[in-house]
């Protein structure tokens, strides 16, 4: 009896796998057959097969299974344990990202008329935004589809956990609506405006080109919509984000809204246990994420400075006013942190604190040693290009997603994302969020640490009876979900005494 059910289950799973792979294979056909690359029916068939296959696979994977933690065999499966399959997928994904960022013409992108894969997506692109497809449209479509389909799978997997369900519906909603449909449709209805980012939630510094000269100009020349995006973009950075991070921690963004987080939490879920929990890696994380933070700040300040230099008429303030404003703001921030939060400056927060200091020095250097076109003796164009190449492409794309099956699903978020660094500093110092440890109930099993995608050694805190307040925690809630003894709870509460370390965990009358 059991074996019949098992047979049906594996039959269903394998059918799903075959259909999905068939749909994926159809995406390669346009490379070999130019005629097929213009077939709308081909595209519909391919995307439908991928959808059907993934849903079928997920359904049979969890159908008839009692609701609960589903981590059986994670370390026996090559895909999720850096086995052969894992390396193969990593290689394939990395290859795709390299083509996407550096050789889009290999994918068929051509401004004069697409071929191959990019041409394959022309009909959908024309439908949504009125233009021929670009490699970014192809990427965006597949990215969104991956979040939606693996989101369904994730919800199925965690159907007993309402936090996970709601959170996943949220990332699916923001990806489909804010990141994909709304920007495409806004382009469709505003065909005459120049390009600027229309994803409201993709704020600076995650969107590193927000303050670049061409982008600022395009927004300023983009009519009401452009000005709206400019003002709301700034409001997101200075008002919306600090308020929400204070109330709920950085999870409001990183695991509920952000597109990078959305992919990590859905398609990346099978790889979360691959993040390293070593203390040495944590040290590296502090260095790398703050290096990126300083770099993105200085690059941004530099491009605004050079924008103000060359376009004095487009702004109501001068570049000197700008520099003074930035320095004054950052000094105030440092002062406030020093006065009120000195005691909370653990290593993570201390590195952020020092980073702010470096940014101030860097900003003053820009003012002192830069000309109209040269920032610190480097062309400002070169500076932004480096950032776009090094951080935007190599780090967030190739390493960030390509290496999911090798380093876990949050490589970018953990080691590179400047947005995560800023939100993290606030989460550490001024937020109501914490993961509460339930008295003395921890049995040090290690499931929480193992399944933390950010590489936080959650157990190290839980077994001491200490709450977890870490800059890097994105609040995905999986540690709490996989805890077999009900020890961890994500919650918002009083800002004070979030991190008290008891002499002994609860249970002993000492």
């Amino acid at each position, binding site marked *: 009896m059991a074996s019949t059910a098992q047979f049906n289950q594996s039959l269903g799973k394998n059918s799903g796998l075959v259909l999905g792979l068939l749909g994926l294979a159809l995406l390669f056909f346009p490379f070999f057959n130019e005629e097929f690359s213009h077939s709308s029916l081909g595209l519909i068939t391919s995307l439908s097969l991928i959808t059907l296959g993934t849903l079928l696979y997920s359904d049979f994977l969890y159908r008839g299974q009692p609701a609960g*933690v589903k981590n*059986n065999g994670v370390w026996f*499966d090559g895909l999720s344990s850096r086995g052969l399959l894992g390396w193969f997928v990593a290689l394939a994904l990395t290859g795709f990202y390299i083509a996407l960022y550096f050789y889009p013409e290999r994918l068929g992108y051509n401004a004069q008329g697409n071929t191959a894969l990019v041409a394959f997506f022309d009909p959908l692109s024309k439908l949504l935004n009125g233009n021929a497809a670009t490699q970014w449209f192809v990427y965006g479509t597949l990215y969104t589809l991956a979040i939606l389909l693996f989101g369904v799978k994730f919800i199925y997997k965690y159907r007993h956990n309402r*936090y996970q369900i709601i959170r996943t519906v949220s990332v699916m909603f923001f990806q489909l609506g804010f990141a994909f449909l709304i920007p495409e449709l806004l382009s469709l209805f505003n065909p005459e405006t120049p390009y600027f980012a229309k994803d409201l939630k993709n704020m600076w510094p995650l969107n590193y080109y927000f303050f670049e000269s061409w982008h600022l100009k395009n927004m300023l020349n983009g009519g009401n919509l452009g000005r709206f995006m400019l003002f709301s973009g700034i409001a997101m950075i200075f008002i919306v984000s600090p308020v929400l991070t204070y109330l709920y921690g950085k999870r409001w963004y990183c695991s509920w809204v952000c597109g990078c987080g959305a992919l990590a939490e859905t398609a990346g879920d099978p790889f979360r246990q691959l993040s390293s929990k*070593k203390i040495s890696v944590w040290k590296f994380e502090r260095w790398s994420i703050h290096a990126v933070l300083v770099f993105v700040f200085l690059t941004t300040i530099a491009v605004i400075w050079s924008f103000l230099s060359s376009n004095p008429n487009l702004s109501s303030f001068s570049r000197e006013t700008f520099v003074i404003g930035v320095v004054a703001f950052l000094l105030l921030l440092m002062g406030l942190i020093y006065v009120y939060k000195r005691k909370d400056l653990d290593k993570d927060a201390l590195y952020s604190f020092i980073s702010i200091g470096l940014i101030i020095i860097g900003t003053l250097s820009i003012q002192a040693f830069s000309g109209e076109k040269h920032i610190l003796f480097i062309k400002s164009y070169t500076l932004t290009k480096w950032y776009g190449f090094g951080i935007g492409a190599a780090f967030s794309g190739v390493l960030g997603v390509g290496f999911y099956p090798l380093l876990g699903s949050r490589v970018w978020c953990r080691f590179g994302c400047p947005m995560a660094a800023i939100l993290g500093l606030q989460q550490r110092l001024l937020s109501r969020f914490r993961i509460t440890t339930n*008295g003395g109930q921890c049995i040090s*099993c290690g499931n929480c640490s193992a399944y933390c995608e950010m590489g936080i050694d959650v157990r190290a805190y839980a077994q001491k009876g200490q709450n977890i307040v870490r800059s890097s925690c994105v609040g995905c809630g999986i540690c709490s979900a996989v805890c077999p*003894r009900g020890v961890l709870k994500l919650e918002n509460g009083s800002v004070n005494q979030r991190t008290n370390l008891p002499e002994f965990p609860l249970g002993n009358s*000492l």
Partner: protein
Amino acid sequence: MSPPPIIIIGNGIAGTTLARQLRKRSQQPILIISKESDYFFSRTALMYVYMGHLSWDQLEPYEQGFWKKNKIDLLRAEITSIQQNEKTIVLSNGERLAYDRLVLATGSTPNRFGWKGQELKGVQGLYTKQDLEQLEAMTPRIKRAVIVGGGLIGIELAEMLHSRGIEVTFLVREKNFWNTVISATEGSMIEQHIVEHGINLKTSTSLVEICGDEEGNAVAVVTDKGEKIPCEFVGLTAGVRPNIDFLKGSDLNINRGILVDDFLQTNLTDVYAIGDCAELRQPKSNRRAIEAVWYVGRMMGETLALTLSGKKTAYQPSHWFNSAKFFDIEYQTYGVVAPEEHENEAHFTWQDPTKLRSVRFSYNPETERFLGINSFGIRLRHERFEKWLNDKANINTVIKQLKEANFDPEFYTHYEQNIQNAWQAQHNLINL
């Protein structure tokens, strides 16, 4: 020459906690000796390695450099005897090590009740790293398994084997699962859950003998119902007892475990015992002399660390608490909850009629003082119950304020109102 160290025999939670807490308070040399493993690991999580949730290194709560950094020496060795007069221990290779103080934290070993066939190949308990390795090596040959003993390790072993596609029969001698601790109602709920997970559960059924083939492999078990169940593996999980066989014949006072006073000291000077292997001469009321659970090992380690660093401290556990997980149902308990009601203890049980969820409060029927709680499927806040128990809170107060103790993840359905309504209905109360 450096002074002799404090030697701790056993690197489980008791011995390790002692070493860590002692190092925080003192610079004395510390040596931990283990027969079982190079490094401390979480014994309670052995199952997750077998099921593929965790890799072995994820079972180790401290990185390997931790021990050196904290100047805690580790030694993999077996000890054969204690020479109390010379303050030395003897290792199985004949080597002698001098100690300043000696702490026995040797844990437990599975019970074996002299069943016929218990020495056959394919028959084992699950307690040590070696047990797990033996089971893992055996697994490719196991199609059917029988588990004997209806307690916590039994149900974990059932889940483990089942996760690897093995057909599992689970023999429980008692009428209900774990009926020495939980009520028949709670037991039935767990039993239903066990069956839903595809386990062939047989309650009120005992093992009579294990049959073997001519090569000495287990091939079947015979139950007291006369049934013969073919299998390649038999898991013996009928509880544990202190792992102290190697101490028999020493000068130590031993009953079931190593007898210790309130300060966890044995009858021998400078020799202490903590954790599963220790038996309290005078346990507190409502507490047992041997409590073989993780938390007690940890707390004894903490207490002894104070004593050995010069602050003599009696072992004073606070209110009892424990936790477990039965397949997908989490269990937590705080305070005193007997399996069934008795003279000094009344019970109020609430059960979610559709879901596998229940709560049972115990209280004094005369004074209405809250005594304890069992919860299945709802997470509860340890701190809140510790406080209610310390405050000797009234049962009505606890039920009225129960929401404060909820520890489920955000957005989960709350049941406090249903629980309050049921309590009010049962006691004809208008208001709490």
